């Protein structure tokens, strides 16, 4: 009986150990076989490798270029173009200054990595600003600063031109009531997006508002422009006049003049004009009232303030 138990134990042990051992060996064998096959394939590929030029054309990054066996990747010191050269020639080429040394390559790589990381940061920031500054699908990342509390759930986006007489009419007749009834009561906030299409002076006037914004006086300058509006392209918004308006509201003239003369914000105006046209705006003033649920009510023309009040009251339920 005792012998029987012992032989059963031995049998169980063998039944467990032998297959495990065999399978482990099988894995080892298959791994080594795979490595063998891979190395043979690599050797074959290495021998029939495309030239660096062809690889670049196929979209391979400079630093990932593969060279044939016994060849090494180097970069020309003059234009950093990649080349595969015999390993024995590398030292000579570096010595003669044709190929970049290891140290130079490291520096170059570091610089590239720095640039890449800066680009990624910029893309990330751009994406973030786009995501946080789109209201009802309208990109207001380059628009004016908000007038009113940012906590309000309704947003009024005004598309306007500083030379447009109807915008001026709305600003003088309706804006005060809109400010009193909607903005100051924290029911809505207002953004101004430039649709500068009535001539060169419109673009310059819009640029000037952002130069004033650099000194924290966007809305003062905005009001100053409408209060001084004259005929379209009649010279009331010439560069000299714009600078004078800056003095009138107490801006630092030196800073304002250098900002306006440099055209620092010209891209911003082009961008805003593009935003306006891409959202189907074809007249100024046009207003988009964006409700708490993201729905948009479009108001075209210098319509009375009561329309704005009714629309926003309806949106707020």
């Amino acid at each position, binding site marked *: 009986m005792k012998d029987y138990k012992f032989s059963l134990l031995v049998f169980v042990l063998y039944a467990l150990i032998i297959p495990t051992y065999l399978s482990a060996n099988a894995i080892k064998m298959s791994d080594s076989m795979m490595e063998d096959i891979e190395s043979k394939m690599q050797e074959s590929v290495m021998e029939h490798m495309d030239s660096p030029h062809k690889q670049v054309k196929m979209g391979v990054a400079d630093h990932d270029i593969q060279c044939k066996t016994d060849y090494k990747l180097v970069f020309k010191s003059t234009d950093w173009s990649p080349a595969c050269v015999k390993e024995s020639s590398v030292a000579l080429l570096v010595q003669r200054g044709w190929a970049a040394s290891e140290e130079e390559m490291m520096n170059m790589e570091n610089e590239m990595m720095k640039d890449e990381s800066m680009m990624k940061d910029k893309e990330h920031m751009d994406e973030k600003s786009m995501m946080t500054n789109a209201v009802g699908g309208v990109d207001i990342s380059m628009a004016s600063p908000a007038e009113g509390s940012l906590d309000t759930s309704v947003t009024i986006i005004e598309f306007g031109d500083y030379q447009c007489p109807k915008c001026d009419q709305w600003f003088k007749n309706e804006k005060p009531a809109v400010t009193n009834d909607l903005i100051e009561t924290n029911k809505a906030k207002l953004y101004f997006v430039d649709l500068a299409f009535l001539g060169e002076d419109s673009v310059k006037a819009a640029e000037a508002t952002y130069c004033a914004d650099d000194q924290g006086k966007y809305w003062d300058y905005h009001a100053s422009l409408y209060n001084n509006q004259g005929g379209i392209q009649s010279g009331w918004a010439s560069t000299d006049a714009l600078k004078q308006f800056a003095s009138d509201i107490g801006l630092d003239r030196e800073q304002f003049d250098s900002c306006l003369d440099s055209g620092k914000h010209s891209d911003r105006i082009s961008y805003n004009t593009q935003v306006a046209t891409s959202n189907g705006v074809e007249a100024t003033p046009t207003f988009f009232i964006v409700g708490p649920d993201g729905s948009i009510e479009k*108001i*075209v023309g210098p319509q009375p303030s009561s329309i704005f009040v009714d629309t926003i009251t309806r949106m707020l339920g």
Partner: protein
Amino acid sequence: MLSVLSEYIFLQPIATFYVPSEDVSGFALVVIVSALSGLVVSMSIFRVKMLHTRQLSGSIAGPIIGASAGVCSCGSTGFAIISTFGTIGGTATAFLSNYEIPLRLVAIGILAYTYYVTSKGITAQCKIQK
């Protein structure tokens, strides 16, 4: 039609008629141009059809000048013109917008003169010869 183009009548979001107090004179001129245009154009058509005369220049020029003055500034018409014709369109719309009131007065003058000439012509031509 002129009131819509001149932005005294708005169709969206709800139909609204609104004339700001400072723009009453502009609206009055639009009404006068419209009334005279209706009168002069119909009289001219009568004259051409019934009396076979071909004097239409005044009855065409008057309404065109009256209608184009002011409506081409920053509304959709002006935007379309500037987008299509660029700088030339911009200059034209700027002119029509800057001289809105004088142009409407000129249009009224042309229409009034055309009305006088047309009514005189109709009276003379329709007089029964004894």
